[in-house]
């Protein structure tokens, strides 16, 4: 429980609750948002970015941590890898076992292709599993894909690729139907109507959920379906380089057993990168809500093979990461907490903003409150603002929290914080990679036979993603990539395998005068305490 300064501030929140709950703070104007973002959003801190000097995006800026990995050394010496000994020979190789990879594998299998998943941890160890709040789809009578399109376009600062976004919104209802028919249990009313809420920046209530285990419910169902179809899953095995054929087309990957360090070669007619995000790179020192393996591996593999990045300079800082207690610092507090009625309150008990602005605006606003405005609550290990959860029970009735956000209740209860009775402290946490590899609507990159799906894609969400559009995109673009990669594979004859692009990239680095002692992809973060080790 709380003590000291935290407790003093909490008393102010409690005293002001009856008044605050009556308010609906006004939404910011477009100009106010622009100024706020430019001043406080981490994406706008120029000294945290570096200009790429080699590769397809030479001249573009990306976070310094990502630049260091993009312009690093391969984990292999291409000349030492024997590509004539093929360990796995498949039609479609899916790299990554999250929601996008599993969806892709299911559809590739459905289309009759011989498909295999490789994943560096277990299938389901992915950000999908941790998505709490929900999945968007315009399936209510007062809504339409066009309104969904406009919401996402505005949220993404009008940078979204229209051909990708239109696919996302138009195929959203079918994605929900597909999941439902696989057995995903969405929250429904007694007559079958989907229970939907708002997310930040939505103009219609189109957030479908499975309590606050939305992603877990989707992921465990997809995983079960992959296993039912007996699709081979090679786990604890990372892809560490793509393999091309002599025509420069994607034709497989060099694999690394994460435990034994054994190298294996996978040959494939088409390859799908579904490796997810980058939170574990801890851009600008932020904590992250991401899973252990979120280290941007797919971006590195694709970039070295010649695929282009889009909007790699824009990250999503989820406004409400846990600020206290320190054991779960940076963990996600789902936006659904605000969707069902909690407001953001500063140290003085003031509702300083509308609780459902878009994520980038909300994060910047919290950072301003805790810095310039001096109205953050100091926790000893950091600073945060209040998310007044008891409001949910007042608005929705007793039992609402247990019914709608049980995971949140459980997470805090382990530290003796009953979120039904007391508010919680939050601060932005690194949550999502808005950018990624550039694709056409069929899911393919400029490297032929190389597809991408899920968080590793850039362009769908522009420069800021709305809540509930990521679970949606992994399904829509995952399924589509799987299907298209399977169809494409029917007419592919794989030529001679080569890793010449790896050597070429190294040479370009040499010529640009870049000398790095880092190897990439990173695969896993290192949180071990460094002391007297060898």
């Amino acid at each position, binding site marked *: 429980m709380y003590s000291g300064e935290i407790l003093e501030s909490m008393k102010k929140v409690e005293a002001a609750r009856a008044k605050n709950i009556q308010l609906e703070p006004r939404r910011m104007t*477009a100009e106010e948002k622009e100024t706020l973002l430019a001043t406080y959003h981490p994406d706008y801190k120029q000294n945290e970015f570096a200009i790429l000097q080699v590769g397809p995006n030479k001249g573009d800026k990306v976070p310094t941590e990502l630049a260091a990995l993009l312009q690093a050394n391969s984990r292999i010496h291409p000349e030492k890898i024997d590509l004539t000994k093929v360990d796995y020979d498949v039609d479609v190789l899916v790299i990554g076992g999250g929601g996008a990879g599993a969806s892709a594998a299911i559809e590739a299998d459905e289309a009759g292709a011989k498909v295999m998943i490789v994943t560096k*941890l*277990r299938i*389901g160890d992915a950000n999908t*599993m*941790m998505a709490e709040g929900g999945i968007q789809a315009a*399936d*209510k009578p*007062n809504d339409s*894909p*066009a*309104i969904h*399109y*406009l*919401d996402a*376009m505005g949220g993404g600062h*009008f940078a979204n690729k*229209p051909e990708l976004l239109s696919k996302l919104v*138009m195929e959203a*209802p*079918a994605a929900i*139907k597909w999941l*439902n*028919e*696989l*057995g995903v*249990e*969405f929250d429904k009313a007694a007559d*079958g*109507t*989907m229970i939907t809420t708002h997310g930040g920046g939505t*103009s*219609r209530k189109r957030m479908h959920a499975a*309590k606050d*285990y939305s992603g*877990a*419910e989707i992921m465990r*169902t997809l995983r*079960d379906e992959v*296993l*039912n179809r007996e699709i081979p899953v090679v786990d*604890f095995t990372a892809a560490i380089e793509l393999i091309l054929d002599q025509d420069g087309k994607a034709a497989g990957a060099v694999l690394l057993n*994460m*435990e034994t360090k054994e190298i294996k070669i996978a040959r494939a007619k088409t390859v799908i990168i579904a490796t997810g995000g980058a939170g574990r790179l801890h851009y600008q020192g932020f904590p992250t*809500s991401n*899973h*252990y393996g979120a280290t941007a591996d797919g971006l590195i593999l694709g970039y070295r093979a010649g695929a282009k990045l889009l909007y790699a300079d824009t990250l999503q800082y989820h406004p409400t990461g846990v600020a206290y207690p320190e*054991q779960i610092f940076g*963990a996600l507090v789902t936006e659904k907490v605000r969707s069902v009625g909690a407001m953001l309150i500063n140290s003085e008990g003031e509702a300083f903003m509308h609780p459902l602005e878009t994520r980038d605006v909300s994060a910047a606003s919290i950072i301003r409150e805790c810095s310039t405005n001096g109205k953050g609550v100091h926790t000893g290990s950091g600073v945060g603002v209040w998310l007044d959860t008891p409001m949910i029970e007042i608005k929705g009735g007793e039992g609402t929290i247990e019914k709608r956000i*049980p*995971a949140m209740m*459980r*997470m805090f209860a*382990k530290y003796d914080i009953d979120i039904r009775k007391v508010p919680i402290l939050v601060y932005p946490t690194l949550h999502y990679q808005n950018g990624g590899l550039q694709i056409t609507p069929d899911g393919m990159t400029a490297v032929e036979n190389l597809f991408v799906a899920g968080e590793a894609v850039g362009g769908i969400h522009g420069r800021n993603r709305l809540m509930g559009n990521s679970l949606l995109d992994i399904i829509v673009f995952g399924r589509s990539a799987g299907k298209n990669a399977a169809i494409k594979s029917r007419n592919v004859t794989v030529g001679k395998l080569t890793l010449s692009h790896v050597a070429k990239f190294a040479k370009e680095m040499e010529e640009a005068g870049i000398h790095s002692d880092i190897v990439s992809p990173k695969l*896993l973060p290192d*949180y*071990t*305490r460094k*002391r007297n*080790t060898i």
Partner: protein
Amino acid sequence: MEKMVNVFLMGKKYEVPASVTIMGALEYAGYQLVRGCGCRNGFCGACATIYRIKGERELHACLACQTQVQENMYIATLPFFPLEKQVYDINKIKPTEQIMMQLYPEIYSCIGCNACTKSCTQELNVMQYIAYAQRGEYEKCAEESFDCVMCGVCSSRCPAGISHPQVALLARRLTGKYIAPKAEHLEHRVEEIQNGEFNALIESLMQKPIEELKELYNNRDIEK
């Protein structure tokens, strides 16, 4: 000075800060985790762990990422447990009582010892949801088991050899697909889209210059 405690990781003694989680303790001690670490947020079940406080009889189970260390904690991680998953075609099976009998007959060998419930890292009433599954009450089984992260600790403690998380997953899929009422509005919208009813609208938006889109966005009405 930070308060420290003694813990025993797989039997070996280490001194770690009292504030850290078990996962934090492993990393503090110097373990670079590959197994037994997934989402680090209590959703994936990768870090199932059993522990006993030295001198006490009771064996506890928890998720390493969600549990703070204690003095004299004897810790053993359980990064994998061989759950038995049956393969089935979700489109061919039906939510009848027979399906459990067919796929997971061992649930009827439950001796009611309640070890599963006592060991659940999510504090679920595991034995109760198995009882619902036995009776074909899949909707109740689904609700009771909903927060399961499939860590497998329950199964490791079961004398009847039941793979509880797999039973629950089957019950949830049956419920989601067959038992829960259909969303008519969803079916209707999917049909409308298939019939091309939104094509013109979307295409016109895709053509619009950004200034016009901004105008539309900034003035759109927001459902209360």
